[in-house]
């Protein structure tokens, strides 16, 4: 056996406790190895010394200290006993305690209900509740049709947020009329989808946007118009000129696979929305190169006709339901514009 194995045995057992199966091996090794023999002697001495350590007697008064501490009641039990006795002996305080407990319960219930109410009211600050409905429900949104039932606040809470609901509605690609249940008379909203067909060669081309220039729509440019969009309109114009020069002097370079780029037309539509005092909820950003999805905008219904007139200057306008809805008493109208190349 190696020294390490012998030492492991010696550490586990004291000298006289070495099991007989190891005894012969251990004794043989100890006779040959002076180091292990010294360790064995040291460990044996150590065990004996530990065993010979004096057994100390407990100090006087340990029992009395234990008894006094056991008999001394804990602070909690003293307080509980005092409270119990206080309400048991005095009838007035018993009644007062019961009244205070009842008040506390009422207060807690009131606070809980108030918090719930606040939680329910706060999401309805959004102007529109977007509850997706099938296209057949569109007609019921028109004036004269029976008004839809007013959803409960819980249903309003369960409905998705406006942006998300609009995205979901537009993802299908097929323009569908969406109508949202009114939350109140002020922010009643009707959502419509327009299919706008751009004339070939103007909006559908890469040089889209040249058909309509901001100065044709209005002499006054919207203040909220992003500078990059304004620049893009100018850039489109210059690009058109460059192309015209190119066709005069040089053969036109072969173009890559045609890809529908509509930033210029989209910019015009956004400008129209801004002029109609509306806002774009979902549309191209100024840095967006190619926008293929629809634009979702919200504008006052009073400006809807001027907006559609502007749109008609851009191209043909088609309603998803085939006919233009009659004016209602809605405060705002949500419009989804999708471009189609003619």
């Amino acid at each position, binding site marked *: 056996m190696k020294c390490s194995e012998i030492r492991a045995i010696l*550490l586990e057992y004291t000298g006289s406790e070495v099991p007989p199966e190891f005894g012969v091996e251990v004794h043989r090794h100890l006779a040959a190895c002076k*180091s292990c023999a*010294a360790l064995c002697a040291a460990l044996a001495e*150590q065990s004996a010394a*530990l065993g010979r350590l*004096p057994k100390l007697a407990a100090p006087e008064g*340990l*029992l009395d200290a234990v008894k006094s501490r056991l008999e001394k009641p804990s602070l909690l039990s003293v307080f509980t006993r005092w409270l119990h006795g206080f309400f048991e002996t005095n009838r007035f305080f018993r009644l007062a305690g019961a009244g205070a407990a009842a008040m506390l319960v009422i207060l807690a219930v009131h606070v809980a209900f108030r918090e719930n109410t606040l939680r329910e009211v706060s999401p309805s600050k959004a102007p529109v509740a977007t509850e997706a409905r099938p296209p057949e429900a569109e007609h019921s949104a028109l004036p004269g049709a029976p008004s839809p039932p007013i959803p409960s606040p819980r249903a309003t809470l369960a409905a998705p947020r406006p942006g998300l609901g609009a995205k979901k509605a537009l993802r299908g690609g097929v323009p569908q009329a969406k109508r949202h249940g009114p939350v109140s008379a002020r922010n009643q909203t009707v959502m419509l989808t327009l299919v706008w067909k751009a004339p070939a060669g103007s909006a559908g081309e890469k040089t889209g946007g040249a058909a309509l220039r901001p100065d044709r729509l209005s002499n006054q440019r919207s203040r909220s118009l992003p500078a990059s969009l304004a620049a893009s309109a100018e850039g489109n114009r210059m690009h058109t000129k460059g192309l015209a020069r190119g066709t005069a002097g040089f053969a036109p370079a072969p173009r890559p696979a045609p890809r529908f780029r509509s930033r210029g037309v989209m910019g015009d539509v956004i400008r129209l929305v801004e002029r109609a005092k509306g806002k774009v909820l979902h549309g191209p950003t100024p840095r967006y190169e190619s926008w293929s999805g629809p634009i979702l905008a919200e504008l006052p219904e009073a400006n809807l006709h001027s907006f559609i007139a502007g749109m008609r200057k851009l191209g043909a306008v088609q309603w998803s339901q085939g006919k233009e809805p009659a004016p209602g008493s809605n405060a705002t109208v949500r419009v989804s514009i999708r471009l189609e190349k003619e």
Partner: protein
Amino acid sequence: MLLAVKTLKEEDKEDIEHFLLGDRAALDRVVLRHQDRIFNLCYRLLGDHDDARDCAQETFIKAFRSLRGFRFECGLATWLRTIAVNVCKNKRNSAENRFWKRVMRFGRNPENDEGPELEIEDPAPSPLAMMTEKEKEVLLQAAIDSLSHDHRTVIILRYVEELSYEEICTITGYNLGTVKSRLARARMLLQAELRRESGKGGGHEML
């Protein structure tokens, strides 16, 4: 005539039942029966008389306050030892104890405080063999104090209290292999510490 000799466990059980029935004298009997054992264990674990007295007192207080939960799965002595070991561990880990330990360590030469060597190759006779009993006790207690709580606990329970491995497992909560390995490690550390103390010449000069 049949001589009825009650074992320690039976006496404890009887006294506990009497105590739970309201017999205050049973408490005295239990404390007097176990106080030396518990105080000795606390003293060896802590190395301080006052701390050992406080911990022994705390052990009995805790035991009697939770005596209704004692299910006699082990002997009362083993249960009291378990409580004592935990109380002593908490005492050593307390902020007050750590503060004073740091204060006492302040100013000592760090060269003399280097860790104990684990490999013992010196064939010289054991330092304990050359000392008187009193010197051995002081030196051993100092060496025990230098060990960690786990190592100190197993070595005291095994060689001072002379308990079996099973009882040590019950008290410490370790399994048998852990107890054996910790015991072997503790013995090596203790031996190295003893050799280091004797190498410093502290063995004879400590008295």
